[in-house]
Structure formats: C-alpha cells, structure tokens
C-alpha cells in the first residue's frame, strides 16, 4: 500500500514496534489497559511490555494469576463496560485453556445480546516453531480463530505491520487477536514514527511477479521471499502476497494476482489439514476456478505435533526448498 503522507521511519525490532504501539495507544486512550502473566516488572516472558508498568502504573498494567480463562473472562467483562483491554497470552497454546472465554464468550456475546454490547478486546500472543519449545509451546492455531466467527485475526510479518496491526486491533470495537511469532521479536525493520495504523483486510504485495502467486503471512514470509529469489534464478517470477490478516482476508488482492499468474501456492506453519491454506484453496476454486491453470498447492507444517530436537523441528517446518519444490510442482501440472 502506498500512502500519501509518509511519516519518517527508523529501524526498530518487532518487539520494540509492538511496545511502541502499546505505549502510543495507552497514551491516547486511558481506557486501554494491559493484562497478563508476568507483564509488569519483568516485562513479559518475551519482554514486550518492559517499562510499561513504570510508565502507566498498576491500574493500567495488570499482572494476573496463572488463570487464563479467569483473566480473559475478566477482560471481556471490563471490555463490556468500556475498557479496551489488551491481554497477553504468553503462548498461543494457552488459548486452549481459555477456549470457552475466547470462543463461546468473546466471540459471541455481542451477537447473542442482539448487539446491545461491544467487546473491544485485543488478545496479543505469540506462536510458532524455531526455538525448541516442543509440542505444547509451538503450535500455530490461527485457523481456529478463523473458523469460529467473532475475531479479527492479524499475523504481522514485519515490525511496521506489528505496530500498525496492533494499533488497529486496539481501536477496534470488536474482539481481535494479534498473533506474533516468537522468532520475529529480534527482527528489525523500518517503522513509521507516531500514529501508524494498518487496516485489517489489506494484504501487501511484497514482490511482483507473473508466473505464480505465493500467499503467506507471519514468519513464513521470510521463507517465501527467499524461495521467490531462488525461483527467479531459474527464471520463475513469483508474486508474493503477505496476507497480514486472515480474518478478514483480502480476497480481491489474492484473486487479482491469481487472475494474472494462474498458479497459487499457500505457505504457512500451521497444520495442513483444516488449515488456512485449505480455506484459501477452496475459496479461490469457488470464486476464480477458471483462472487457475493448475490445482492450488499447499506447503504447511506437518500434521503431527511439533517435535523438540532441532533436526526434527526443522524437518517439521516448511523450509525454503519445500516452497521451491511446491511452486515447481504446481507449475509443472
């Protein structure tokens, strides 16, 4: 997206960009509060909230007991009464402990009430493999939040998007989840100063190409961009789309690109079966099947729990050669 006004940028890490969004939104609106485990003095396990307790005090930065259902529920109640809670779930895997509050409550109470209330709740969490955190601390569960209506789902791949998508989530009057990636916190990028909002449902073209469309998000974007360069060396020009949000999805951009290239491969860390790629493949087939010159390909995390050993973990994860192979397979059909 090109913007008319370009605010000055500087290099920040993904972690710093998220912290900046939290800080700016808390300065802007006194109803924005943070809740989560160890988020105060310690700054959270991933140090994202470091310094915010000192800056805003214990009524704005609220450390919670280890009670995911309890504090997500409390955030929902506070949101119903006008607060804008940003809840840190330390690991995406723990969303399952709070599943009732997330999926039966936050996602439904506005609907059930006949629109008598709004729930401006933001869940911040991180997921993904890469550091040997094993099966209960590595899952990519974004497809669950896409399947159950009620949440907007953002998965930033860059520091700039991390800041802009989180700010949009916090200002949204309905539930959102911003899913960070644990291997991206130290990554660096240019981030606009001051107010920076990335709207939901607007994907970004990260590379222009005409032979094939590669769709991805979150850390897999790095793998996909690497694969696109490798493909270019063998004369295949891939268009690379970063979805940024999977609910809503920028179908216009995906369909336009597929209309041009006729070939589509979706890449993500989440499991293949019932995953985001399955939805994209089905929807593209429904809406633009005639544009497809080959069936849609998927390159995903394996359909088994995430293993611990580095050798096994990297075999589990879609890697650059997997994406290159997946792309060539689709082009060869």
């Amino acid at each position, binding site marked *: 997206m090109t913007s008319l006004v370009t605010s000055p940028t500087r290099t920040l890490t993904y972690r710093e960009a998220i912290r900046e969004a939290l800080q700016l939104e808390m300065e802007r609106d006194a109803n924005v509060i943070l809740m989560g485990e160890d988020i105060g003095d310690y700054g959270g396990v991933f140090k994202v909230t470091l310094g915010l307790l000192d800056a805003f005090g214990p009524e704005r930065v609220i450390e919670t007991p280890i009670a995911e259902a309890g504090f997500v529920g409390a955030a929902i109640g506070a949101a119903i009464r006008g*607060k804008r809670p940003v809840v840190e779930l330390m690991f995406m895997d723990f969303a399952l402990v709070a599943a009732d509050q997330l999926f039966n409550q936050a996602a439904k109470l506005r609907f059930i009430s006949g629109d008598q209330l709004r729930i401006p709740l933001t869940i911040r969490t991180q997921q993904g493999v890469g550091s040997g955190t094993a099966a209960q601390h590595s899952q990519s569960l974004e497809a669950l939040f896409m399947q159950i209506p009620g949440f907007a789902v953002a998965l930033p791949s860059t520091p700039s998007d991390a800041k802009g998508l989180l700010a949009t989530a916090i200002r949204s009057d309905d539930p959102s989840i911003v899913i960070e990636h644990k291997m991206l916190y130290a990554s660096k990028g240019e981030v606009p100063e001051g107010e920076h909002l990335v709207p939901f449902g607007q994907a970004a073209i990260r590379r222009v190409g005409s032979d094939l469309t590669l769709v991805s998000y979150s850390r897999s974007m790095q793998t996909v961009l690497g694969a696109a360069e490798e493909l270019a060396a063998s004369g295949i020009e891939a268009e690379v789309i970063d979805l940024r949000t999977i609910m809503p999805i920028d179908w216009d951009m995906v369909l336009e690109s597929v209309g041009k290239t006729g070939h589509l491969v979706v890449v993500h860390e989440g499991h293949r079966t019932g995953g985001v790629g399955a939805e994209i493949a089905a929807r593209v087939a429904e809406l633009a099947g005639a544009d497809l010159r080959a069936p849609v390909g998927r390159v995903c995390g394996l359909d088994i729990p995430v293993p611990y050993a580095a050798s096994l973990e990297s075999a589990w994860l879609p890697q650059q050669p997997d994406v290159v192979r997946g792309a060539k397979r689709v082009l060869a059909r």
Partner: protein
Amino acid sequence: MNGNSLLSAFEQMLTIRAFEERAEQLFYQNDVRGSVHLGIGQEAVAVGARAALRAGDLVAPTYRGHAYALAWGMPLFAAFGELFGRAIGSNRGRGGSKHFADLDRGVLPANAIVAASLPIACGTAFAARLDRREEITLVPFGEGATNQAVFHESMNLAVLWDLPVIFLCENNLYSEMTPIARMSRNVDISERARAYPMPSAIADGMDVTAVAEAVSGAADRARRGEGPTFIEAKTYRFCGHMAGDSEPYRTKEEVAEWRNRDPIDKVRRELQEKGRTSGELEAISQTVSTAVMEAEVAAREATLPSVLDIGLGAANWMEVER
C-alpha cells in the same frame, strides 16, 4: 423488609412465577424452541437480591435466569418476545430463553456455559473499580458451577483485586439430574469461600427477606471497597432441571415437602400479618396474571425478525455472501 418492599417483592415473585409457568406450557405447545430452564420455587433468591441492590448494579445470570432479568425490570413483552423469537425480543430473537439480556437495565447476557459468567462478572466489577464507580455486579450460579475451574479462578481474582462482586450460589441441591452430595464433599458450599479467603454467608433461599439481608451486607462491604462476598442461598426448584425433565432422581415426597415452603406463600402470610387483606393480595395477583397474559398475546402477534438482522454485523469481519 418493610411493608412496601415486601409488597413489591410479592408482586415481582408472582410475575416471575406466572411468566415461568407460561413459558413451560409454551414449551410443551412447541411455541418455544430449544430448552427452557425454570426456577419455579427459587424466586425469593433473585427478588431478594434485587431488593438489596441499587439501580445501575449489574447482574450476570445463567440459563436459569428469567427471574433475574424480570427482577431487574426487563419488560414481560421483551421476555415473551424473545421466547417466541420475535424482533422485539430482548435479544432480537438471537438468544432465546437461555440468554435474556437487557444492558440498559443492567442485565448482562445470561450465559449457557456453566460458570462462564463468573470471570466476566469479575471483569465488569473490575471496570467499575477502575472507574471509581459505586457499581456492584451480582453473579448468581448453581452449586454445580462451583466445581468448574473458572469458579475458583474467579473467586481468587475477586479477592485479589478487591472486586465489588457478589457471588450468589443458588444451591438447589441438584446440578441437572445429580445430587450435589455425589459431586462434592462440602456439605455447605460456602465452606469453599474460606480458602481464598472470602467472607461468606448462608441464607434461607426460600425467604426473600433473608436473602435481601445477606445481599445487603455483601453490597455494603463491596461499596466500602472491601471486595467480594460469597452467599449460599439454600433453595429448591419445584420444577425439573428443564421443561421435559422426568425427574427420576428425586421423590415426590421430597418435592412436596419443599413446596410447603413456597417462598411466595411465605411472603403472602407475612403481608397478611402486616395487615394486608387477602382481597388486596388477590387483586395484585389478578393484575399480575392480566399483565402476563397481555404481554404474551402482544409478543405472539409481534413480527418476526428480518433475516437481514440475522447478525452479520455482530462481527465486522464476518463474511456476508454465501
């Protein structure tokens, strides 16, 4: 309770009873879909609690929550409308019997997941505390709910954060079809409050004045900033767990014994002792019956919700097209 409060409690309890008796019949006539959970016999708990609280205080009911919505002033028309799935229903036809909501009057959506309303009630109370508002959230639930993990999480949070929330356990002895003694070794559920530690009280849930007194004490504490209270109201539902329950788990004698302690009869006797004539009380009863009947008829005649109001706006991100 003074004479006037007692009289208004009498009228509220009669209204709730008449509404629920109609709801049950309407269910058997297939005019009400899904399931209907009635609290016939438990009316003194909701009405007593309401009498002890102020306008603006919130309630976060369960699926057995008609009494709370009506005690908080939700119009009968909106209640019947919701049962019939009408556009003028309290939830515009999206919720039904289990989910009555009336935010303007302080009724959060009734919750059909056992114990799920407890942490949410902590959250509304938390917002009130942060905003320095003297607002209390009352959260009623059954004794069965006290075996859920979020019950314990919520009790702990409420004490930890000094929340102005009142946990009101309606111990009606059965969770669904199972007696509480088969689910917990606590004889009095209120024993559990001590662990957090939270002050607690046991009230006779068949006595509207006793409930009001217990809740009033809890409300005073909450408004002084002293945090939550746990109240166990010992009560009984004369009806089944849900309309259609064949009730093999209890004897007719047991039900009859509790029916002798009907909370409405008790209030009627007390009012007569205070000098109200049976004619006066009968007139109130007549007025209530007429109001319930008229609301039912009007709601039945009301229009169905437009399918355009199916709720696609309920999350901005939901897809519109099929």
